[in-house]
């Protein structure tokens, strides 16, 4: 038995599928696809799956992954990716499936592209420059039971901030994974207050996951 990892995108309509629903969606899709997946052997057999660093509702990604087990070690995984894609909803595409090499606990960082549409771009740029110039940016991070105050500046690693024809695009690295996850919505919520961005709905797209040393997680 081996564990394989399916890398997939979750965009558009599919960004509104919650983790709980996503599990059911994959359960059914894997069943339909005919891929030889391993079922738990209990009274109520089901496919054993693990999603790494799941996304908040409404955010998009081209770098999601789910692990599941199989007894067929020599299956044609290139074909499997296509088979599985066909059984998934609009907005979810399986990019590739391959045996797991790195444990998902190695995930430490995620890269996001935050896009403000052109009519909000100027204000977004202004908000960002205020943020960039500030020495600290404290926000409240809500956990399951606790509310912690953290300094966003300390965790936000900005790759680029640019105005384009598509609007204002901010590319950032934020902690993600078991140890600490910073939801990019904390950043956009913070920016909201800086330049009257109340009505803006920036698109948040996760483009990649990384390990501690900024190596791409595969």
């Amino acid at each position, binding site marked *: 038995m081996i564990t394989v990892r399916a890398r997939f995108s979750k965009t558009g*309509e599919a960004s509104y599928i919650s983790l709980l629903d996503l599990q059911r969606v994959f359960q059914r899709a894997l069943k*339909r696809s005919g891929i030889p997946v391993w079922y738990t052997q209990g009274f109520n057999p089901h496919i054993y799956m693990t999603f790494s660093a799941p996304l908040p*509702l409404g955010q998009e990604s081209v770098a999601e992954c789910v692990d599941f087990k199989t007894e067929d070690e020599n299956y044609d995984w290139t074909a499997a990716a296509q088979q599985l894609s066909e059984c998934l909803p609009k907005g979810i595409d399986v990019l590739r499936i391959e045996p797991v090499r790195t444990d998902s606990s190695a995930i430490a960082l995620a890269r996001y592209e935050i896009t403000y549409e052109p009519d909000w771009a100027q204000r977004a740029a202004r908000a960002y420059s205020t943020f960039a110039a500030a020495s600290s940016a404290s926000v409240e991070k809500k956990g399951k039971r606790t509310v912690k105050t953290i300094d966003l500046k300390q965790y936000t690693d900005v790759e680029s901030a640019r105005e384009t024809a598509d609007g204002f695009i901010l590319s950032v690295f934020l902690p993600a994974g078991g140890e600490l996850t910073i939801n990019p919505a904390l950043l956009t919520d913070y920016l909201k207050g800086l330049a009257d961005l109340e009505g803006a709905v920036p698109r948040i797209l996760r483009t990649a996951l990384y390990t501690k040393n900024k190596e791409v997680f595969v």
Partner: protein
Amino acid sequence: MTQELRAALAAVQKPGRYTGGEPGCVYKDKDKVDLRFAFCFPDTYEVGMSFLGMKILYEILNAREDIWCERAFMPWVDMKEEMEKRGIPLYALESKDELRAFDMVGFTLQYELSYTNILAMLDLAHIPFYAAERGEDMPIIVAGGPCVCNGEPLADFFDLMMLGEGEVQLPAVCDTVIQGRKEGLSKQEILRRCAQIEGVYIPSLYDVSYLPDGRIQSVQSRDGAPAVVTKAIIRDMNTQPLPTHFVVPMIGAVHDRAQIEVLRGCVRGCRFCQAGFLYRPMRERNADMLSEAGRQLCENTGYDEISLTSLSTSDHSQLETLLDDMLTWTPEEHVSMSLPSLRIDNFSQSLVEKTTRVRKSGLTFAPEAGTQRLRDVINKNVTWDEIERTCTLAFNAGYTSVKLYFMMGLPTETMEDIEGIAETAQRVVDLYYKNPNKPKGKGVSVSISVACFVPKPHTPFQFVPQDTMESLHEKQQHLLRSVKSRKISVSYHDKRISFLEAVFAKGDRRLAPALCEAYRRGCFFDGWDEHFHFDTWMEVFRDLGIDPAFYANRTIGEDEITPWEHLDYGVTKDYLIREYHKAQQAKTTQPCNRACAGCGANHLLGGPCFDYR
């Protein structure tokens, strides 16, 4: 998706209700189809996505290259507000195009208290309510479903209504619209043509006049429309394939499983049951066809649960064969079976075993009335001995919870019958504790759920007045006092909701303004307790000079012209009257697969419904 829509979705609960894109949903190029149909369900996504009728028609229409059928549901309160605030018109989930862009917009009428939701959806879509106010640029607004059997309160809103079964009829209507458009006909001309299709009712082609006392004087058809519209029917269910490609919802629907419709109609003839009369005669599908369709459906959807649906699944003559057929593939495919609507009187040991092989859940039965006399009145041919036998079987098999459904406010009911409800539940509790094979160390729980009886059109009880709210209140209190055991829990329906249901079930065209006004004053989602504003409704009736009791609490004369007199579901009025008289004498009628009682519905098939030998 537009920025506005994304902003709305970010602000509401369960945005997955409003996005579409589920596995199995159909996308087409809108420029390559001749007709776009928006199938609208006037309740939430979760309720609508459980509805088999939509799945059937979605598949049939989308199988055609020239038609694209999409879906729309009533947005929940938070989304409605967001859409209004942001000026997002109601759209179909697949294309996200607004409903006004469609050729036809079809609503399914499942429940009287969803009528205001229809208005809410039209309003959100910027479509005028009244058919007479809609020009050539507006879609043709149509309706189907059981409440069309007396859709008169909505008659002024709809261009066209479809009585009976839509599998053949709806495509025929679409064809007529496509053809009419090609010929450049006006909407009125197209509708006049549609009036010739089996089961099609064009409300604007019927004039209703009233007597001074408020009753109907006459209903006259015009322009070649039939005087009486007879419902459409699939004569042989084996000629009609089952849907094998459901749209699979991603957020949990109420019934989120594969469904195969094993039979249509019901042989029982329970006198209160509208469905039992509307879908006559009972027609079965063959076991092998059902099993194969079920297997394909599970394969295509990935569902791991399949339900054998119908009004009375255990009346299928090949049920054991069907279960055996299905058991040849369900275990290896990790699929479990469930059988809703079982009858107490033919619930067998092997049936219990076959369906509980995978999982044990609670058991639900509907004796409907607490005493034998009253069960005979309503022709629910169930005896205490049968209840006892079934519960013993179930307790032996390890069941520990039983749910019993009853009604109150039934014709001829007395307080003795109400006490009978509590007694029946108590005897079930006693049965459990007397059973030596009961599960060790576990108690029993019996819950009784009591609905308020609503007299419905096309049933023998259509003539009966609904019990008043005061009387229903007294009966509910009496029931609570009569229950002595803690093992028994009681729940009952809001009598005010049932009252309004009766008003619209038996209503006529003069109620249309009340619907508009109630909606204007904030009534929608009336079927949801937390959004039901009874006082507003009563104020609307008062302000418009409408007496709701005229519709709900008045005896209808046997010779009176009902609002639904011109709508024919195959069962003759003579038969309804005969059954009404038998009810008053507490005389039962046999199920129609045992002996034909002569209801008249066999004319729809052109011969006897069963092979009586």
